């Protein structure tokens, strides 16, 4: 509990965390409000309703970045020295960071749902564009889970790689250059990659062959788990120089 409190304080005591969360809310609000409010009603009615609710992939990217910072700031700013002197059982520190990442991810997911539902659903309703309730629940749960897993993915990858820039670059490549990966490897294998799995989890309308939403969630959660275990093991035996 002590370590958890310490990790929470580390997160909330730097402006970056608040800036990333604020940016995410702003972008989601703009995306939801502008698309549903400005696009012609007939065009909206012709679109797949899912595409109107998913928002932007930036939310997941921003929360992945926040998770990565949570893990790698220790090394970038040298605070790992003190952290691991106070807590020599280093895997406990990584576990606490993952727990904090989970909480922040859930908060971010709830913010996304609140902003998107508050703007997109209400504007669509006012403009007479019907949205199926089950579809909305499906989309929000998928995107919300994606945001949570994105944050955990950042913590786990950061714990493994340690280098901040490398972690963010590798993470973005895995999430954003998903189409390229799938193109070269083929969708039968490519669909298991994090970026493809995220698309499936969010319920993104696409012509690509994707996993089911549940399986995609399991693939992403499994990837996070493997990375987290590897991150803990490496951190435990790593020399802090």
């Amino acid at each position, binding site marked *: 509990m002590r370590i958890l409190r310490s990790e929470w304080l580390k997160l909330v005591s730097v402006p970056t965390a608040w800036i990333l969360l604020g940016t995410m809310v702003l972008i989601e609000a703009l995306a939801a409000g502008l698309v549903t409010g400005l696009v012609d009603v007939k065009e909206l009615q012709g679109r797949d309703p899912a595409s109107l609710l998913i928002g932007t992939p930036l939310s997941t990217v921003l929360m992945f970045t926040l998770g990565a910072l949570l893990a790698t700031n220790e090394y970038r700013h040298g605070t790992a020295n003190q952290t*691991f002197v*106070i807590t020599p059982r280093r895997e406990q520190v990584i576990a606490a960071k993952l727990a904090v990442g989970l909480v922040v991810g859930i908060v971010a997911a709830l913010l996304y749902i609140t902003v998107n539902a508050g703007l997109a659903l209400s504007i669509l309703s006012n403009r007479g564009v019907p949205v199926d309730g089950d579809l909305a629940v499906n989309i929000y749960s998928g995107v919300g889970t994606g945001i949570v897993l994105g944050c955990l993915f950042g913590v786990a990858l950061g714990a493994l790689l340690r280098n901040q820039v490398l972690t963010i670059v590798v993470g973005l490549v895995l999430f954003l250059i998903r189409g390229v990966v799938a193109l070269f490897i083929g969708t039968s294998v490519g669909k298991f990659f994090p970026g493809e799995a995220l698309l499936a989890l969010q319920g993104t309308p696409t012509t690509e062959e994707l996993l089911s939403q549940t399986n995609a969630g399991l693939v992403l959660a499994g990837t996070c788990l493997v990375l987290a275990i590897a991150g803990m093991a490496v951190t435990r035996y790593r020399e802090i120089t």
Partner: protein
Amino acid sequence: MPEITVERLSKRYGETLAVDDLSFSVDAGRVTGFLGPNGSGKSTTMRALLGLIRPSSGRALVLGRPFHELSNPLQTVGASLDASDVHPGRTGRSHLRTLSAAAGLPNSRVDEVLDMTELTPARDRRVKGYSMGMRQRLALAAALLGDPKILMLDEPANGLDPQGMRWLRDILVALAAEGRAVLISSHVLSEVEQTVDSVVVIGAGRLVMQGSLQDLIAGDQRPALVRSPRRDELRALLEAAGATATIDGRSDRMFVHHSSLEDIGLLAAEHGIPVFELTRALSTLEDRFLELTGEGGNVR
């Protein structure tokens, strides 16, 4: 049992042997200077003591145990390896709170160490606005959080102005007087000369000497400083007796080699030559250090 024990410690990074069969110990109630040129293995040794790196061979023990076996690390050892090890976006107070929370210490302890290090007025400023001296104080505050039995500070005087140096000296001496073991490393010898009770000198990862500050400075090779209004007359007598004398700029002073203070005094008395001063010339810690580690070390 010594508070800190290093036994035949070696640490190799690839082809580089950073620490080579190093042994020494640090006792409670003293300020021990851990001296050596840059790259001589001081920081590596401290990291091994703190469990941050694994020795290639040998042992680095705190209270007779490896660091990771300590039940309350922060209450046992307060350490500062680099004053820059702080997130610049945090305030001084929030930085300390992240550390105190991990050790289960109350927030009131944070305010206490901020007071001790005279950082209270700056506690709510972001660390990126701190001077190097303030960062050193913050690092010491972090090390003091757990009211530890042992303090281990790597180059704590770096960046301190003369006022800060005096403050550091006073607080370290006071902490040692309370019964703590204080180990401070430095390559700037004048910084610790007035602070330490004993020294561990290393060069190229190997122990050069361990002993008291007086052991380090002492040596029969130091010349005698003689002041006399009839200096040249006394000089001639001393040289006739087999000593050698060198004259410095002052008209009444000379340095005499190869003769004891007693022999110089007796010779002057025999010839009725008044002597105003007769003492061993003070060799500085830095002189002795350079002698021990070689002139090639990176020593200021």
